C-alpha cells in the first residue's frame, strides 16, 4: 500500500492557508496536510516526517520563503515545492526558478494549485 502523501503549507496568513488547504483537500481528500505560520515552525514540524508537497509563502516574519525552501530541500530533497506569493516581480520568479521551486502568484486559485499538483504527478510517473 502506498504511503500517505503529506503536504506542508507555510504561510503567515491563516486566510491563505485555509484557501490552499481547501483546494488541495478537494482534489486529494486522503492527503495529510501540515500547516505552519512561519519558517521555524515549518522546520520543526517536518524535521521527523517525510513531506512530499510544499507550498511556501515568501514574505513572512523570520525566515523568508526562499531561504526556507533551501533549508527544507536539504531534509526533503525530492519534495515538490512551490513558492506562493503576492510578490510577483520577475526577479522573485527568477530566484524561485534558480532554486528549483515553482511559482504561484497570489491571490491563489484552485486552477494554479491543481496545475502545480499535476506537475508533481507527471514528474513522479
Amino acid at each position: 500500500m502506498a504511503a500517505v502523501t503529506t503536504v506542508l503549507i507555510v504561510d503567515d496568513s491563516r486566510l491563505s492557508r485555509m484557501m490552499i488547504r481547501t483546494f488541495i483537500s478537494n482534489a486529494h481528500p486522503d492527503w495529510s496536510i501540515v500547516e505552519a505560520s512561519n519558517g521555524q515552525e515549518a522546520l520543526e514540524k517536518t524535521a521527523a516526517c517525510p513531506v512530499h508537497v510544499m507550498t511556501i509563502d515568501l514574505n513572512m516574519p523570520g525566515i523568508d520563503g526562499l531561504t526556507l525552501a533551501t533549508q527544507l530541500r536539504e531534509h526533503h530533497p525530492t519534495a515538490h515545492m512551490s513558492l506562493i506569493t503576492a510578490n510577483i516581480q520577475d526577479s522573485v520568479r527568477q530566484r524561485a526558478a534558480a532554486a528549483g521551486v515553482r511559482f504561484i502568484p497570489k491571490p491563489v486559485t484552485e486552477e494554479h494549485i491543481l496545475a502545480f499538483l499535476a506537475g508533481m504527478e507527471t514528474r513522479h510517473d
Partner: protein
Amino acid sequence: MISLTELQRDAFTELLNIGMGRAAAALSEMVSEEVMLSVPFVDFMSRHDASALIQEKGSERIMAVSQAFSGLFWGDTMLVFPETKSLELVRSFIQESFPLEDMTEMEQEAFMEIGNIILNSCIGSIANMLHQEVSSSLPSLWRGACTDILGGQHASDTDDVVMFLRMDFSLQERSIDGYVMFIIDGNAIAALQASIDEFLSHV
C-alpha cells in the same frame, strides 16, 4: 469600539499584502529594480498616533501622494517617501525621458504619476478580490512635515480611531525606503468588514 476577529484581521492584512505585491511589481517595472517588501502591519489607532509611528522611522519631512477612495468601503491611501529620497526616485523614473533642465517642472507630475500607479494597483487588486468596485480621487501631492500632512487632511478628527494599514518597501540599489498606508475610519471599517465576511464565506 472597533473589534475584528482574528480571521478578519488576517484577511485585511493578506489583502494588503497581495495589493502591495501588485503595486511593487508596477514600481519595479518603472524603476527597473527589484522592490523589497516588508511584512504588512495592521492596527487601530488615532491619526495622531499613526503620525507619531511614521516619525519613528525618521521621516520628519516627507513627500507623499494621497488618494481618497470610495465605493462599498472608503478611506484615504497614501504613498510616502522621505523628502530627499523622493526626488532621487523621481529622477530615476524620468531621466531617460526628459532633459535635465526640464526636471524640476516634471518632478511633481512624475511623482504624482508614480503614486497614482502604485496606489491604484494596490486598491484595484483589493477591490477585485472582494468583487467590489472602488473608485479613486485624483492624486494629491503633499510635501512637508508629516504631522502637518497627516493632521492637515482631517484636522478636526485627529483623535478618531482609524484602521492603519502599512507596508514598507525599499529599493536597495538606490537606498530608497517608502511605504503605503491606508487610513479607514469607523463607519468604513464596518462596511469593509461586511465585504471581508462575504469574501470569507466563499473560502
